[in-house]
């Protein structure tokens, strides 16, 4: 029968396309990125699509809605093929069986050992790699050089210890009623894991131990860092609004020009240079108590592939990842505010760029990422134990009240961890 011959032929041809190597057809795959990546992802996708081998269909999702939207799409069978995922969510997604095992692909990359270890540490569950490093986001301190000059400080030298932060903040605060030495978002869990936790790590402390199974909020290092912030808040070196800022002023407070020092992240360099070209600022590490100690949150995105993504799309997705890892890809990422995740190219990608980017890269290299399957619950939640404890303790009226807040927070955090499967 002619008809049967025809259908058999089509079937064979289709099979052939899939199995014969070298005849990989151009594929289009869907990719989601959280809105924090809206600066670096579109130019990267544009460059990749322009090369023409495969096409990416990019969708930018508001950062607060990404997990919910992904879950709904996944339940409805319309999850994106790939996702640039806030790295701290990799364990939760992987353990829920949502992600494809990328171990073989990742280890086949010749520069595998040069990829950001912090990203890989949360991208690995058991022995399997479910997320590969994609974009980096480091945390550091910003200082306002003009205010430093007015306060009689050396405008070219940022603070290198907690004591220096305090000293410089006092000098800048003394300039006038509307000028403050220091700023932080006192009611934002995400902001404080990004910029406050590194103060603890820099002094060799931690908030989680045993691979995320034990909370250590009541350790000496954490209490010391809290007392340091509380002292500055108590002495009015910080604007009163910090107490209730749930993150909306995280960046804007410093950008307004009346704050001496503010912890921030690598994204601030691009945003300040583009939107506040007159602001004269410096960038330095988030220090420890003693000189020479510093740390950073190693944030950013891991690249993951949905568990149910069709095999036919994998070559295209892998080609995109390799493009992002190429010198060209890394340069696009860096020029648009992301810290590169390939250590061996760091020297080349920063050529011709603002030298403040180098600080973010070095901070990142010494950065940490907490591992927890309940990260959202304990850290990111607006009502979770992390920010509730910090808010109560930072603005406590007495030392006893501060210690009570810490004890309550420790108990609550441990209870949530214990209740998790």
């Amino acid at each position: 029968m002619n008809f049967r011959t025809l259908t058999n032929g089509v079937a064979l041809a289709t099979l052939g396309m899939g199995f014969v190597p070298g005849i990989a057809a151009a594929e289009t795959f869907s990719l989601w990125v959280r809105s924090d990546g809206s600066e670096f992802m579109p130019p990267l996708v544009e460059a990749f699509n322009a090369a023409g081998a495969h096409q990416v269909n990019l969708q930018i999702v508001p950062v607060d809605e990404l997990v919910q939207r992904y879950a709904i799409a996944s339940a409805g069978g319309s999850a994106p093929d790939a996702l640039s995922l806030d790295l701290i969510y990799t364990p939760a997604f992987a353990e829920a069986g949502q992600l494809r095992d990328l171990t073989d692909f990742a280890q086949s990359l010749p520069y595998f050992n040069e990829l950001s270890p912090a990203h890989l540490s949360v991208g690995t569950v058991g022995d399997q790699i479910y997320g590969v490093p994609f974009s980096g986001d480091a945390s550091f301190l910003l200082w306002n050089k003009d205010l430093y000059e007015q306060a009689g400080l050396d405008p070219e030298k940022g603070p290198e210890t907690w004591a220096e932060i305090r000293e410089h903040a006092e000098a800048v605060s003394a300039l006038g009623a509307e000028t403050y030495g220091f700023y932080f978002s006192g009611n934002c869990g995400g902001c404080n894991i990004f910029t406050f936790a590194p103060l603890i790590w820099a002094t060799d402390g931690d908030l989680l131990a045993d691979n995320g199974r034990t909370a250590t909020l009541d350790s000496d290092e954490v209490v010391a860092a809290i007392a340091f912030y509380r002292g500055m808040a108590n002495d009015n070196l910080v604007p009163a609004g910090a107490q209730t800022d749930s993150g909306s002023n995280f960046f804007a407070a410093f950008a307004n020009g009346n704050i001496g020092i503010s912890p921030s992240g690598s994204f601030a360099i691009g945003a300040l240079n583009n939107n506040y070209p007159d602001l004269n600022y410096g960038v330095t590490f988030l220090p420890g108590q003693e000189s020479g100690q510093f740390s950073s949150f190693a944030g950013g995105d891991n690249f993951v592939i949905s568990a149910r993504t069709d095999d036919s799309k994998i070559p295209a997705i892998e080609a995109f990842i390799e493009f992002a890892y190429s010198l060209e890809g890394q340069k696009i990422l860096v020029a648009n505010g992301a810290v590169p995740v390939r250590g061996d190219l760091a020297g080349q990608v920063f050529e011709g760029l603002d030298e403040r980017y180098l600080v973010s890269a070095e901070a990142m290299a010494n950065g940490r990422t907490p591992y927890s399957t309940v990260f959202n619950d304990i850290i990111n939640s607006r009502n979770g134990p992390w920010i509730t404890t910090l808010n109560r303790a930072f603005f406590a009226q007495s030392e006893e009240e501060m210690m009570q807040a810490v004890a309550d927070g420790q108990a609550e955090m441990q209870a949530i961890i214990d209740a998790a499967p």
Partner: protein
Amino acid sequence: MSNTVPDPSPDAPPTPRAPRRTDWQGLVYVLPALGLVAVFFLVPLGMTMWMSLHDWPLLGNPRWIGTANYTRLWGDTSFWNAMRFTVIYTIVATIGLMGVAMALALMVQSEGRAITMYRTAYFLPVVTGFASASLLWAWLANVDAGLFSPLVQMLGITEGRVNLLARFDLAFWSVTIMVVWKMAGFYMVILMSGLQSIPSDYQEAARIDGASWFQRFRWITMPLVRQPFALALILCVSGSMLAFDQFYIILNGGPRNQTITAVYKIFNESFVSFRLGYGSALSVVLLIILMVLSAIQLWLLRDKGDK
């Protein structure tokens, strides 16, 4: 002959020839409405109950656990704390709203050109969304950028700045006042419709008999607006019991998680902790509490004269 002509007297029974509608015809007429109720109320309700019997993570596969969510809920102090806060807020907000709404309705019930302007002005905040009103309030109350703090300083009430949102009592009252500002106009309209349906003769007769303003309000106005008042009260109580936006946007549940309402807790369980099954169980319990509350109100405010 006379049989074919309908009896003109209004008390006469319908003529035997008038077409009689059967029960199934009536059903056909309400079918579209029933369909809407089924699709948009009964099905989601059934699904919520079904989910509440599962361990249902936002990501991953659901697992049947029977009534475990409900037993857990019984011992969940954070839910009962949220419930207690919601009830306190509902009582305060309802007293404030009904009082202000009744006062406004009494003020604008007469006719006149200026009155129309007042009615519009009082109703205007109602058309603002809760989210926009909350954002506006959050900004006004911001200690560094807002208007309230400099205002109280200017008036000499305090020396230093006042962070309204950092203290529980101030935060609670500022949100409640915002809700009264935003919603009183809505209940005013409902009560106004009741006030206007009272024949003016009653009030005039009472006035001639020498009744004071309060006596007329107590013995004529209140009994005759009972039904619109009951409607407004039930809407107000159920609306307040479901409060979420204002506490989420203005206060983030703070200070110190003291302003987390029942719906806020459900939101946190479902979309922050990703426990949809447990969130569903909490929703079912909240629904039952609301049904009981509404039934009590309906019973208390039932129109005894009709029975």
